[in-house]
C-alpha cells in the first residue's frame, strides 16, 4: 500500500475536467508534485483533503478513500496551504493551539505542542504577537507550525517557499529535510521550483494538463548509469532528432537547436556525427552529463500524452 494511491482519478470543476484519469501509486517518503500552472496540482491536493469529490475513479491516502473517509484522513494530515490562510486577530500560539485542538489534541497537549511547534519553526520569540503583524516569511512558517503541531502522518506543503527570501527559503528547506529525516512523517510537496523538489524529495509526480506526465523515483534515476548527452546543433535539428530516435535514442528538442538525449549502450558517439554529416547538421557543442530533475521535468513536458491511460507515451524514466 502506497502513501497515495490514484486509480483513474477524474475531477471535474464545473464543465472543466481538471484531473483526467490519474493512475499511480506514490510510495516515497517525500513526494514532489510538479507541473506548470493549471496542471492540476492544487486540485489533486484538494481532492486528497476531501474538498473536491472525484467524478470518476478513486484517490486513497494510507488506504482510506479520500472522499468517504475524509475525516479520518484529515486527522492524519497536516496541510500548509499555498496562499495566506490564518486568523490574523489571534496570537501565533493561540492560532496553532486552536488548529491542534481541531486536529484532535486535548487542550493541554495542544498548548504544549503549539509552543514546541513555534520554537521548532523559529517563531518562538514572536509567538505572542498577533499573526496579522507577521512578515510574509513568518506567515509561511506559522502555516507550517500549525500543520506540524498535531504530529501528522502526512504533511502536505503547497508552495512552501512562496514569497520567501533566500535565507528564509533555505531555512524552510532545512526544516523540511529535518522532518523527512525524522521518518515519522511522509511529505507531499507541491512547488513550481524544481530546486526545492530536487533538494527535498525522493519521488516526483509531474502533472501536465491534468494528467500524469511522469512518476518516478528521483534517487533511482540518479543512480542509474545512463548516458545523458546535451548537444547544440545548427541546421535541420528536427530531422536530425528524428533520425537519432531511429537509432534507439530517447531525445527531447529545445529552442536554439539544443537536444538532450539518452544514448543506449550499443550506440557510439561517432554514429551521431555520421548522421549529422549525412543531414548537413553541425554539432557545435557536446556535453555528457548526469540526469537532473530539470531534465526529467523538461522531458515530461515535451512528451505527448496517451489519452486513454493518462500516462506519458514517449517518456521512459
Amino acid at each position, binding site marked *: 500500500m502506497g502513501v497515495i494511491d490514484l486509480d483513474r482519478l477524474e475531477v471535474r470543476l464545473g464543465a472543466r475536467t481538471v484531473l483526467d484519469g490519474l493512475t499511480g501509486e506514490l510510495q516515497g517518503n517525500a513526494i514532489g508534485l510538479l507541473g506548470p500552472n493549471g496542471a492540476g496540482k492544487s486540485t489533486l491536493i484538494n481532492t486528497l483533503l476531501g474538498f473536491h469529490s472525484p467524478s470518476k475513479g478513486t484517490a486513497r491516502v494510507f488506504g482510506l478513500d479520500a472522499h468517504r473517509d475524509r*475525516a479520518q484522513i*484529515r486527522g492524519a494530515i497536516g496541510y500548509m496551504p499555498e496562499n495566506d490562510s490564518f486568523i490574523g486577530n489571534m496570537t501565533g500560539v493561540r492560532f496553532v493551539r486552536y*488548529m491542534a*485542538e*481541531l486536529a484532535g489534541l486535548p487542550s493541554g*497537549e495542544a498548548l504544549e505542542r503549539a509552543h514546541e511547534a513555534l520554537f*521548532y519553526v523559529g517563531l518562538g520569540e514572536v509567538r505572542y504577537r498577533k499573526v496579522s503583524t507577521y512578515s510574509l516569511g513568518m506567515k509561511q512558517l506559522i502555516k507550517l507550525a500549525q500543520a506540524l503541531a498535531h504530529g501528522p502522518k502526512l504533511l502536505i506543503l503547497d508552495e512552501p517557499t512562496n514569497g520567501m527570501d533566500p535565507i528564509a527559503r533555505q531555512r524552510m528547506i532545512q526544516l523540511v529535510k529535518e522532518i523527512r529525516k525524522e521518518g515519522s512523517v511522509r511529505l507531499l510537496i507541491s512547488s513550481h521550483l524544481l530546486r526545492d523538489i530536487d533538494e527535498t524529495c525522493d519521488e516526483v509526480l509531474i502533472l501536465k494538463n491534468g494528467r500524469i506526465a511522469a512518476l518516478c523515483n528521483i534517487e533511482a534515476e540518479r543512480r542509474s548509469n545512463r548516458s545523458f548527452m546535451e548537444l547544440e546543433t545548427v541546421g535541420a535539428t528536427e530531422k536530425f532528432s528524428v533520425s537519432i530516435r531511429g537509432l534507439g535514442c530517447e531525445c527531447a528538442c529545445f529552442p536554439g537547436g539544443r537536444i538532450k538525449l539518452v544514448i543506449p549502450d550499443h550506440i557510439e558517439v561517432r554514429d551521431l556525427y555520421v548522421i549529422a554529416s549525412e543531414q548537413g547538421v553541425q554539432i557545435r557543442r557536446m556535453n555528457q552529463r548526469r540526469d537532473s530533475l530539470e531534465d526529467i521535468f523538461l522531458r515530461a513536458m515535451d512528451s505527448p500524452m496517451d489519452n486513454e491511460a493518462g500516462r506519458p507515451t514517449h517518456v521512459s524514466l
Partner: protein
Amino acid sequence: MSVYKNTYRAYTGPITPLWMRVYALARYGFAEAWSSKITVALFTLSLLPFLVFLVGIYLANNPIAQILVLKSVAHPLTVDASFFLIVLQIQSWIALILTAWVAPRLISFDLADNALPTLLSHPISRVGYVFGKFMAMFTSLSAVTWVPCLVLFAYQCYSSQQPWAAAHFSIAAGVFAGAVIWIAFLSILGLALSSWVKWRVVATGIIFAAVFVPAGVGAIVSAVLRTKWGLLLNMPVTMSILWQRLLGTPEFMHDAASLPTAAIVTVLVVACLLCVAMLNARIRAREVVRG
C-alpha cells in the same frame, strides 16, 4: 519536538472524539465574542432592565415596600404573563444588538484572512464548523435572553406568598420557547449575513437592515395590496404575536389583522433555510467554480 532541543517529534498522546472539535470551535468562538469590550458593555446594558424587573418583582411581593414606594400608583404591580412578555421583548431586542456585534466577529475574522482552507483541512466538516459557531452565538445570546428571564421567574416563585410556580409554569415554558426560537433565528441570520461580508462594521449594519428593511417592505405591500400578509415580513410584529401566543397574553392586534401561527412559523423556517443556503454557498475551503 522540544522547546529546548528544537527537534521534531511525533505526537503519540490521546486524541479527542470528533464531537470535541465542534466544542473547540464553539469555545474559541465564544472566547472571541467575549474578548471585545463592547460585548461586555452590551451584556452589562442587558442587565439594567433585568435589575429593574428584579426590583419590580420584589415590590410586587412585598406589600409594605409597595405602599412605601408605589403609594401614588393607581394600579398595584402584578407579576403575570404580561409582565414576562415585556421582559422577554426587551431582552430579545438587546439580543438583536448583541447579534449585530458578535456574529461578524465569529465569521469575518476567518474570512478576512482566508482561514477556511486551514480550518476545514482538519477533521471538521462544514456543518460542524457552522454548528460550532452557532453554538457560540446561541450561548452568548442565551446569557441575555432566556437565562435572565428564567432567573426572574425563579425569583418570583421564591418571593410569591402563594404557590405561584405550579400555576404559572406555562409562563416559564413560553418564555423559554419564545427566547430559544428568537435567538436560534438571530444566530443563523447573523452567521449567514456575516459570511458574505468581510468588513465587520458593514456586517453589523446589514444584520439590522435584514430585520427592519423587510418590515418597511411589508408595510408597503400591506398598504398597496390592502392585505394583512405583508406583516409576515415584519419580524418585530410577527415575533411579538408569537411571544404573546406562547405566553398566553391578550393579543395587541385586532382579529382581522392577526396572523396565523402556522404562517409565522413558515416564514421563520423559510428565512432559516435561506440562511442555511447562504452559509452553504459561502463556507467552503475553496471557491466554487461555475461554468
